[in-house]
């Protein structure tokens, strides 16, 4: 096609200028792509760290439980739910839990505590609970009176591994729950997501204590890909097909955390916008200069009877062609850079650790979006700034243009 041939040859006329502009676009692409990959990767790590420390990627509750937790509002037909979950490919692991408030005593001290009954074997597959332990050992896979308590409860009752204490609560059958427990381990004060006065025990022990049957208040889910948590939660809900059950992704169960992450991401978007702005100004400058230099040619084309739309198309094709080639080059460079960053990463000056996971370097997450978004941005920015010179050239009056030397 003549238009493309002319556009391509026009690009080759001033090779240095074209190369420079192309490099700028490709550089902007690569930078954008690398920051996207790094931020996605970092957010991914943080979200993974956060969700796998307790909440999971999604949770199942009896309808309304999340707003008004109650001992009686539990998931009753646990067998059916568990069978459904096992049949879903996207569900990598799941863990049932029961919750109840109680009063804990040790010596002369009394304090309000929060019981969480867990299935240690299942939690091990889904969560990172054991790694949040500061001292002692974790709950045995077989039900026992050994419990793990949070640092706060430990200090409130002055307990350490090996110590005994008792708890009193309200059981589901209306009776008073009352039992003695032994501290197996204490969770970390700084690196644990259990900040309150928590007491973790085997789920069967908790059921026995609270006079619950084979039921649960919560099932934490871990999916194969945290990014698809919302869609996968929908899949689970559809598979369960039970209006008495709520399935909610972490974005809903952990609203505040989710909002904080989103705010943080906006900051990254703004810095990318600035980069793209600089690229756009560079492109505008190049194309404007080219159009100015070729005023006479466009005047000749118009004198010969060329429609303004063709000249407009000619310049837009030039811009599009340059942008496409630059994007292709940028994509190749990004592929290499992102791959490197996903393996080697960038070390963090002050490593942080949370839930027993040490976070020492930012690693890039390479997803199609990491390439598609820069491509989309570079292309649209280039075409947008191309509009002005293209319109300018299309509007050239032949007499004036032919008079220009």
């Amino acid at each position, binding site marked *: 096609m003549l238009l493309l041939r*002319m556009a391509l040859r026009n690009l080759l006329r001033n090779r240095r200028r074209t190369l420079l502009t192309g490099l700028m676009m490709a550089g902007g692409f690569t930078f954008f792509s690398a920051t996207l990959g790094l931020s996605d990767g970092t957010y991914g790590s943080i979200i993974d760290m956060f969700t796998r420390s307790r909440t999971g990627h999604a949770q199942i509750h009896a309808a309304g439980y999340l707003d008004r937790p109650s001992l009686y509002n539990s998931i009753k037909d646990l067998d059916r739910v568990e069978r459904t979950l096992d049949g879903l490919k996207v569900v990598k692991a799941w863990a049932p839990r029961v919750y109840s408030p109680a009063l804990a005593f040790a010596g002369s001290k009394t304090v309000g505590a929060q019981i969480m009954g867990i299935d240690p074997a299942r939690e091990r597959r889904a969560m990172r609970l054991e790694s949040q332990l500061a001292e002692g050992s974790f709950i045995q896979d077989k039900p026992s009176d050994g419990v793990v308590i949070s640092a706060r409860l430990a200090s409130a009752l002055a307990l350490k591994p090996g110590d005994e204490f008792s708890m009193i609560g309200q059981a589901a059958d209306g009776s008073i729950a009352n039992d003695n427990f032994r501290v197996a381990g204490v969770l970390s004060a700084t690196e644990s997501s259990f900040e309150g006065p928590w007491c973790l025990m085997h789920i069967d022990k908790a059921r026995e204590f609270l006079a619950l049957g084979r039921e649960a208040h919560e099932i934490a889910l871990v999916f194969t890909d945290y990014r698809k948590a919302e869609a996968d939660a929908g899949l689970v809900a559809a598979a369960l097909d039970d209006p008495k059950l709520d399935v909610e992704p972490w974005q809903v169960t952990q609203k505040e955390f989710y909002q904080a992450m989103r705010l943080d991401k906006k900051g990254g978007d703004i810095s990318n916008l600035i980069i793209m702005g600089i690229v756009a100004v560079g492109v505008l400058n190049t194309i404007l200069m080219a159009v100015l230099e070729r005023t006479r040619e466009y005047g000749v084309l118009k004198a010969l*009877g060329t429609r303004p739309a063709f000249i407009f198309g000619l310049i837009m094709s030039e811009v599009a062609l340059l942008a496409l080639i630059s994007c292709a080059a940028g994509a190749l460079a990004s592929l290499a850079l992102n791959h490197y960053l996903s393996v080697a990463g960038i070390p963090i000056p002050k490593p942080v650790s949370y839930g027993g996971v040490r976070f020492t370097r930012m690693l890039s997450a390479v997803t199609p979006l990491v390439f598609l978004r820069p491509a989309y941005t570079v292309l649209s920015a280039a075409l947008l700034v191309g509009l002005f010179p293209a319109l300018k050239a299309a509007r050239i009056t032949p*007499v004036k243009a032919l008079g220009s030397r």
Partner: protein
Amino acid sequence: MDKENVIETKGVTKTYQSGEVKVHALHPVDLAVARGEFTAIAGPSGSGKTTLLNLISGLDTPSSGKVRLAGREIGAMSQSELSDFRRDHIGFIFQAYNLIPVLTVEENVEYVLLLRGVPPGERAERVKRILEEVGLSGKHGRFPSQLSGGQQQRVAIARAMVSGPDIILADEPTANLDSATGAALMDMMRGLNEGRGMTFLFSTHDRMIMEKSTRLIALKDGRIDSDTRRQR
């Protein structure tokens, strides 16, 4: 006026506003050019040759008066109508050749046929024939920068003629060429004019070129000073 006139101007004037002063580049000009004429517009620098040609081609609009080309009044046309009209009826030859540098010889000539929507097979055929006629066979794939001035102007002549327009307008087509090359080109144009019956209107201030015309219009200070037809 005669129906066979392909160019007619009636009371055409042009006044340029140059800062504070008004420049009367053309006083009312009445001109009629018959089909097939090979007309030279002569006159000293600043006499209004370029202005008149620009008004006739519709590249510029007159301050007053009317221009009719091939029986149609161009003052009544919209910009896009005018553009299409130029494409279909007028061939241009410029003093500075004005070939498109990124197109080859062949493509420069083919371009006007493309604009007119001539099918590819016919395009190739016509381009080949006209390039032969202007003596550029074998130079099809060259770019303008690889040609001499005379050769470039031959390409421009081929470009102007390939679509078989009613009128060929040329503003000082030989001014950038040495006189021998210029004369040879004029002879070639005259040959094409005779062979194809196309109407030529060109400006020049070269006496030798004027000699080659069948009609000589002399401009002076924006007025027609003399208008003589002659046999050659």
